[in-house]
């Protein structure tokens, strides 16, 4: 099971098994079954299982791009949060997403995010969303996140 289980802010910090831990602290993330597999030292791995309620194209059964957006936003925010010491809230300033290909109907979407630079006020993060192979991405993201007290304004 999990190695560490300190809960700081809204995100659980630590490493989890392959099943991951349901993001129960964030109601919307829990609602779409979002799981956190890793959130440690600026790297976060999260996933969303396929769910027919989240389909954007009824013809093909492909998940709506918005689901991938929500996953990438949460993954980048988690990565930034995992690098903060002491832990505190983060808020998205902006997020840019490139959609490379549609998600495959029926398959879980995973996102791996990295906070590659942390300044006094801002965390910079990038992420990729994929099924099994990060080298074959569904989408990629880059974003800036404000942290500390100002994040809750």
């Amino acid at each position, binding site marked *: 099971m999990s190695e560490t289980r300190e809960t700081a802010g*809204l995100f659980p910090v630590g490493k989890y098994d392959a099943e991951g831990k349901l993001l129960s*602290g*964030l*109601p*919307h*993330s829990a*609602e779409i079954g979002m799981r956190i597999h890793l959130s440690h030292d600026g790297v976060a791995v999260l996933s969303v299982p396929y769910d*027919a*309620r*989240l*389909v*954007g*194209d*009824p*013809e093909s059964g492909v*998940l*709506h*791009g*918005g*689901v991938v*957006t*929500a*996953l*990438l*936003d*949460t993954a980048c*925010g988690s990565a930034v949060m995992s690098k903060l010491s002491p832990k505190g*809230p983060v*808020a*998205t*300033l*902006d*997020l*840019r*997403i*490139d*959609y490379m290909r*549609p998600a495959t109907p029926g398959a879980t979407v995973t996102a791996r995010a990295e906070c590659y630079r942390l300044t006094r006020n801002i965390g910079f993060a990038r992420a990729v969303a994929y099924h099994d192979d990060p080298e074959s991405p569904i989408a990629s993201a880059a974003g800036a996140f404000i942290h500390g007290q100002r994040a*809750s*304004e």
Partner: protein
Amino acid sequence: MNDRLEAAARLEDARDAALAALGEAVPYHRFLGVGFERLGDELTARLEYSERLVGNPILPALHGGVTGAFLEIAAITQLAWDRVWEIMQKGGPEAEAVARGEFRQWPKPVDISIDYLRSGRPRDTYARAHVVKKGRRVANVRVEAWQEERARPIAALHGHFLMPGA
């Protein structure tokens, strides 16, 4: 004269039906609680507040991903609605199919950029999209979302969308 009035009323009803069908066809719209209202050809998307949409329960604030998804829905549906409008102006069997809710030409996002301006409060959110440029293959769209005051947007999106059949 009466015939003309009746024809105009029928067209308005058909447009309302087509818009309702367009919105309801997408499972994710229903899941989030997104609906659409129109005045003439102008569309406003509405995201009905629910606790399920919260990202930060302490503030509480809407999940940033929900706000982003809502902006994306507003952009895609605006482009789809423009297409539906064109089809209905032309009339014929394609227009009848669209009025029955048979629409398969959804645009796909290529890239989007979202600016978060204010935290989303626990109340209804609205969004309006503006198609800056519609090319043969790609459309450039800007969207703004607000809550109580139109002049105080909570988030904005700009992005490119691949037009169907391109």
